[in-house]
């Protein structure tokens, strides 16, 4: 049924959106805080004639996903933080092999085992890549459950269009919170562009092999250049971000995901007090909207970076902004959830220049 409105947890929202976006294979391993996703798909996948496998590990799961993706099916796997660490080799392989896969990470506190609270500690892992070699993966981050619907559909489209793994970055909060969402209709899988590279038996054609192994140095160089062209194309075409109240802002918060949501509430409060503050919210963390942020930074005085980490997206902000505006940072790692009031205090502190909360970054 088109445009169904439901009340669902974030992890489940991703599952339902995936199925409507044509995903017909999921493999995953239980890990908090995203268990609701495999649990939801354990029955939902069966209902739509797809395949669900609880793999014996995150490692096995992503490799099953690799095989299904090579078969031409829209596929997804999910985990949290250290489970995504386990998947890194396969992600590198899938980039070299140019396979489309959607990988969901509901970030939890780290490093190591950490805790099950929401965090932004895997930003580097997602955007810089934790696997070997020169590769990038598009990374999408939503700030509420409805946006999760939209970016799940987008993730599958980007994955197929560019033949690349795509990371959907959430956290323990958005994975768990239940909100009303509206789902678009199921897409027609038959109408999706044909995958002329898939492995389905060589009837009527030459046998083909998919491999990232390329022993000849010049040939591997060429392949890397081919991948670079692809990444340049994605960078040119797929950046997404949202700006709220930035037209007359003097202080702009840069945040993504749950921290952006908290910041939005803080900004509402501060605007009512007359403080000229706005929000720049990247939705694609790779490709990061460097140029739009750079342009914005030319006309504001202060940039306030707020994230659930010790400062990972901060580095992209520094790359983008440089010395064009003063950069301040407030980071909350460890699964701690701040309140909008904490963020408001940070922004007031920046405005006053009293350095009580957060720090000023020397660039």
């Amino acid at each position, binding site marked *: 049924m088109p445009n169904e409105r439901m009340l669902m947890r974030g992890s489940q929202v991703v599952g339902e959106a995936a199925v409507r976006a044509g995903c017909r294979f999921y493999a995953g391993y239980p890990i908090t805080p995203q268990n609701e996703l495999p649990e939801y798909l354990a029955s939902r996948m069966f209902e739509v004639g797809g395949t669900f496998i609880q793999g014996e590990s995150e490692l096995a799961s992503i490799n099953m996903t690799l095989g299904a993706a090579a078969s031409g099916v829209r596929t997804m796997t999910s985990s949290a933080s250290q489970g995504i660490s386990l998947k890194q080799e396969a992600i590198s392989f899938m980039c070299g092999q140019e396979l489309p896969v959607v990988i969901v990470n509901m970030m939890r506190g780290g490093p190591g085992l950490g805790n099950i609270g929401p965090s932004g500690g895997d930003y580097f892992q997602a955007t810089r890549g934790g696997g070997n070699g020169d590769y990038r993966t598009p990374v999408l981050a939503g700030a509420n459950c409805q946006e999760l619907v939209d970016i799940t559909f987008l993730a599958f489209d980007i994955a197929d269009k560019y033949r690349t793994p795509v990371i959907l970055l959430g956290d323990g909060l958005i994975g768990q919170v239940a909100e009303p969402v509206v789902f678009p209709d199921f897409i027609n899988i038959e109408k999706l562009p044909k995958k002329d590279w898939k492995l*389905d038996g060589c*009837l009527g054609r030459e046998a083909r092999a998919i491999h990232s192994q390329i022993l000849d140095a010049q040939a591997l160089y060429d392949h890397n250049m081919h991948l670079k062209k692809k990444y340049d194309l994605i960078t040119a075409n797929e950046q997404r971000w949202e700006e709220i109240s930035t037209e007359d802002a003097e202080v702009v918060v840069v945040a993504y995901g749950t921290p952006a949501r908290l910041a939005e509430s803080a900004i509402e409060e501060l605007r009512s007090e007359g403080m000229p503050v706005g929000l720049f919210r990247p939705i694609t963390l790779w490709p990061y909207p460097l140029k739009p942020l750079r342009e914005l930074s030319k006309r504001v005085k202060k940039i306030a970076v707020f994230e659930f980490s010790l400062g990972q997206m901060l580095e992209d902000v520094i790359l983008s902004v440089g010395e064009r505006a003063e950069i301040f940072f407030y980071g909350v790692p460890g699964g701690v959830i701040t309140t909008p009031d904490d963020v408001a205090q940070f922004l007031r502190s920046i405005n006053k220049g009293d350095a009580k909360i957060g720090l000023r970054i020397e660039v």
Partner: protein
Amino acid sequence: MNTELTFRKVFGRPETLTDAVTHYCPGCGHSIAHRLVAECIDEFGLREKTIAVPPVGCAVLAYDYFKVDMIEAPHGRGLAVATGIKRVQPDKFVFTYQGDGDLAAIGTAETIHAANRGEKLTTIYINNGIYGMTGGQMAPTTLIGMKATTAPMGRDPRLHGYPLDISRMIALCEGVVYVERCSLASVKHIKQAKKAIRKAFQCQLDELGYALVELLSPCPTNWKMSSRDAWDWTNTEMTKTYPLGVLKDTTGYEAKK
């Protein structure tokens, strides 16, 4: 007076093998195994519906030798990748071809669990008791006393544990219908190996469950022996730790004959 005889070919390269000269060492069992697998694919008419998963190991370039669709898997993950393929394309013939490192070291979990799930897959498992591609390091299957570059004094159970008979572990899983161990090191053994591979293929075609054929393979280079000695050693020494024969057969094929 001599009459001119006409000859017809009775033995040659199977259709499923490419023309490439392999990179395998002289006397290696891999290319014999490749031929047997290719012959079975030809005989069953499976070439155009086969998707295979080569290992990381000496056979890492197998996609240059087989004229079937092939997907590279990260080391050890072949049976997970094959599971993904077979689950979404159950009508295709999907097999993994793996060595002792790929299947029994780094891939142990994926191997046991694919077998335990009774995936409708076939595995050709090449056991040469050593890591060939990387230059002769110890494998889980290295025999006691056998020297390797990472066990220069020879395998010692106190330090290295005992040789791993993973086929026996696999045979314990209920979803596994057929496990046989053969050798590639004599005419008689090669012929038995062919029979075993055919049977393992049949298991998948009949959707019975998981089937595995272990093939003891000579490795003259890393055993530091001549081909002749390596072939002998396979049949005299390897078989002491890895006895040949059927480890499991719930197919019912024998009873039907």
